[in-house]
C-alpha cells in the first residue's frame, strides 16, 4: 500500500458515470486511489513510470497512465476505468471483440488495451491499420505478439459501425 503523503483534501470527480467524493491526499496517484477501492482493481500497475500503459484509464475521454496522474488532477473530471465498460453486465463491443479474438493472454495489459481502443474508436470509428498500430503502440503487451490485438481492434470497429454506435 502506498503511503498517504501530503495534506488531506476532499476530492470529487465522476467515476464511470457516477459522481464520487472521497478524502485523499495530495500525493496519492489516481491508480492507487482507484485500486484501493475494492471495485477498482481492474486497473493494473506494472512499470509505474507511464511507459507500459497497463494502468491506462480515460480522463475526459483521453487515455492516461493513471500511475503517473495525481488524484487531485481529476477533480471534477470524468474518469472511466475498465469496470465502467459495458452495459447491464454485457461487455462493450471492444471487450467482446478482445474476448472473441483471444486478444489477450495473461490479461495484465488487457484493461489498458481495451480502454485505449475505446478512446481510439470514439475519435475515429474507422481507423486504418497504421492508425491502429500507432495507437496500440502506446501500450506494452508482452504475451500476444500484438497481431491478435490489432485484429480485435479492427473487429471492434467493424461491430460498432454495424451496430450504429
Amino acid at each position, binding site marked *: *500500500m502506498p503511503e498517504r503523503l501530503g495534506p488531506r483534501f476532499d476530492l470529487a470527480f465522476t467515476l464511470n458515470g457516477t459522481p464520487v467524493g472521497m478524502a485523499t491526499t495530495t500525493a496519492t496517484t489516481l491508480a492507487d486511489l482507484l485500486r484501493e477501492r475494492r471495485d477498482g482493481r481492474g486497473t493494473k500497475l*506494472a512499470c509505474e513510470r507511464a511507459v*507500459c500503459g497497463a494502468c491506462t484509464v480515460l480522463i475526459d475521454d483521453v487515455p492516461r497512465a493513471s500511475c503517473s496522474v495525481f488524484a487531485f488532477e481529476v477533480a471534477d473530471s470524468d474518469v472511466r476505468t475498465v469496470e465502467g465498460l*459495458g452495459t447491464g453486465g454485457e*461487455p462493450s463491443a471492444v471487450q467482446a471483440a*478482445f474476448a472473441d479474438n483471444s486478444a489477450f493472454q*495473461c490479461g495484465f495489459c488487457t484493461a489498458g488495451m481495451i480502454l485505449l481502443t475505446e478512446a481510439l474508436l470514439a475519435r475515429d470509428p474507422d481507423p486504418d491499420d497504421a492508425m491502429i498500430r500507432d495507437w496500440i503502440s502506446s501500450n506494452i503487451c*508482452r*504475451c500476444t505478439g500484438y497481431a491478435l490485438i490489432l485484429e480485435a481492434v479492427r473487429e471492434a470497429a467493424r461491430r460498432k459501425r454495424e451496430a450504429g454506435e
Partner: protein
Amino acid sequence: MNDLAPLRTIGRSDRRIDAAEKVAGRAVYTVDIGLPDMLHAKVLRSPHGHARIRSIDASAARAMPGVHAVLTRDETAAIRMPVYGYFIKDQPIVATDKVRYEGDIVAAVAAEDEGTANRALAAIRVDYEPLPVVSDLERASDPDAPELFEEAPVGIVPKYGEGASGELRPRRNVCYRFSYETGPADAFADCDHVFEDVFRFSRMHHFHLEPFVSVADWSREDRIELWTSCQNPFGLRKEIARIFGLGENQVAVRVPYIGGGFGSKNGCKTEPVALALSRLAGRPVRFCLTLEEGFLTNTQHAAILKLKTGVMADGTLIARESEILLDSGAYSDGSPLVAEKAGYRIPGPYRYKRIKTDCYCVMTNTAPAGPFRGFGGTQTSWASESQIDMIAHRLGIDPCEMRRRNLIDLGEPFVPGESGIDSDLHEGLDLVVRELGYRDRNQPENEGPVRRGMGLSIGFKDGGGVNKPALARVKVSTGGDIFLQCGTAEIGQGAHTALAAVVAERLGADRSRVRYMPVDTDHSPFDQGTNASSAISVMGQAVDRAALAARRQILEFAADALDCPAEELELTDWEIRRGNEAHPLAPMIMGRFGGTGWEFVGEGFHKAENSHAAPLEAPCVFWEIGWGGAQVAVDTETGQVTVEKLFVTGDAGRAIHPLVCRGQDEGAALMGLSQALFERMIYDGSRLVNGDALTYRVPLADDLPEDFRSVTQEQGHGPGPFGAKGMGEGGMLPVASAIANAIHDAVGVRITELPLTPERVLAALAEKDGR
C-alpha cells in the same frame, strides 16, 4: 494446415475460459490480494557488485513508528536453512557474509505501508568492504579472478542416463557443468571439413507485466498461507517447508491468475522474505517488487557458444563438439537445469555420428539468471542454426538443402535411448519455404544501397520437462457440473482453457460446464510445475485420463442402473443414450445415492517412464520445433536491418484451441524478433545500465514486421490428448538465426553476436569491403 474437422470442443476457438473475467478487469491476480492487518515489505539492495559485509546496523529502522519487522542476517540465522536454489542452495534470503551483485538483498522491512518501509530501509547502516567483480564470462575462471563463493554451497547432481554427466564446481566460479557425449571420439578424422565458430548471445529480462509479488500469512506459528505469482506451487511448497523446517502440510500455496512469467516465476523469489517478515511481525505481509527490481531478480542467460562441426563435402553432418558458457549471474537459480538443456539441445534437429558437449554455468557479479522461454534452446538454436547456414555457404550448398540432407526423420530417436522425433521436420521446412517465397529470392532488383535477403531456421528443443509427474482430478456432480482440479497455473498460455476443453470433449459436455478449480496445494492434485511447454503434453495426459476415468464410472453406474452392458451406452449432455433412448442422469443418481446426490471422481496420472538409456533419465515427452523464415532489407549505408517478412510455424500436433496456439507462436516470435534486433540488458561491469521500462526496450505493435504470419501445423503425432503437443516456446527459437541468415543472404556478412544492431552490420560490411 488447420484442416482437421473440429470436434465438439476440440479444435474450436471459443472464448477462452478466462475471457469474461480478463476483459472485464475482474480476474484476480496476486497483486490484487489483500488481507486484514496486512503489512507491506520493501528490501534494501546492495549498491556494490561484490562486497563483504562488515556490519549492519538496523537499530534506527527497528525503532521507527509503523515498522513491525526488520529482517537482516541476524534474524535469518535462526531460520533452519535460510538459502534456496534448484540443484544448488546458494541464494540467501538476505545476504549473510557477502553481497554478490548490485541489487542483492541485504535487509527487509515490513511496515504499515511501503513508504514507511522504504524510509526505514534508508536508516539501515551497512558497512561494506568492496571486492573486485567478475563480469567477463571468459575470464571468470582465470586463476586470479575473484571468487563469488569461497566455500561450496550445498548442491546435488541428479542421476543422469547414458552419455550424460554433471559436476558441481568443476572450476573457479563455475557452479555446474553438464556434459553429454555419444558416438566414436575419432569421428572428426573422417570428416572432409571441420569448422569452428563462436557465437555470442545477449541477455534479456522476462519483462512480465505483473511484478514478482506474494502475500504471506505466517501469523499462526504452525501454519503458512501464501498467495503468490508462482508457476510451480508444489516445488515452492517443498522449498518453503525445507527452508523454515515445517511440514509440507503446514504450507498452503495458492496461485491466482499470473500476469505473465516467461520462465521467471519458478521457485523462491519474493516468498522467503515475505514469510520471514510475517513470522517476525505476526501479521500478513505483502511483498511486491517494482518492475525495476524485477530486472534484479531473474534474467535470461547470456552465453558464448563455441561449436566445432565436422561435415562431408556433400554437406552430411558427422560430428559436433561444443563448449557453452552460460552467464548464470550471482546465484545458481535454475542455471544447472538450463545447462542440461543447452548442452543437450546444441546438436539441433540433425543426425550426427558423434556429439560431445560441455556446458558451464559461470557465476558473475550480475543478477541471477534462470529459466527463460526457450530454456537454453534459444541460445543453442541461435548458434546452431547460424552455423548450419555458414557451413552450407562454405560448401557451396543451398542452406535449405543442407538442412534437408541432415534432418532427423519422423519417429527417429534424437540420440540413442531417446524418444523419436514427433514432427515431420521436412513438412515444416517445406511450409516455410513456400510461405516465404524462399525459392524466388534474390531477384535482380537486389541492387542499390538497400539489399534484400531471406533466411531459414529450425528451432529445436525437447519439450515437456524432465521426469515430470502430473496428477489431475475430474469430479462430476449430480447435475453434471464438472470440477477440474489440477496444479497447472494460468499464466496467460491458455492452459486452463485447453485442459477444460479436453474434459468437456471426453464427457460430452459443453465447456461452460467445466470449472477449473483454484490452484491450491492443499486441494489441487500434485504437479511438478507449469513450465517446459508441458501443460497439454504432460498435464494434458493426466487430465485426459481423469476425464476418461470419470466417464467410465458414470457409464458403469448407468449400465448397472439400466441393467445393460456399459458398451451400449453413450454420455452426452448429462444424459445416457442407449440407441434411441435418453436417460437423464440426475434422477438415476438420486435414486441410488439419495437426494443430495453424488460426485463421480476420476483421477489421472502421467509421467514418462524412467529409462537409464535416455541421457536425461527419462525419454523426452515431445519435441518442440519452431520453424521460421525471414526476409530482411539491409541498408548498406546505415546498417539498419528491416525485417519485412517474418513467418513462424509450430506443430501443435492437434490444436485444442487454434487461436490460443496462434497467440503462443506469435508472442514467442515477437520476443525472438526483439532479441534479434534490439532487446537486451546492458551491463557495464556489474552495473545494469538499462534496468527500467523506459530504457529497456521491449517490442511494441509498431515493431511488427509488415508481413508477420504464423501457421499452426497439426501433424497429429503428439503424445497429448487428441494428438496434441506443447506450444509456447518454439516460436521464439528460430527467429534470431533466421534473421542473421537473411542478413547474410542479403549482403554477404555474418553477424555472430546478438543483437543484430546497425553498428554490427556496418562494421561487418566495412570488414568485408576491406574498409
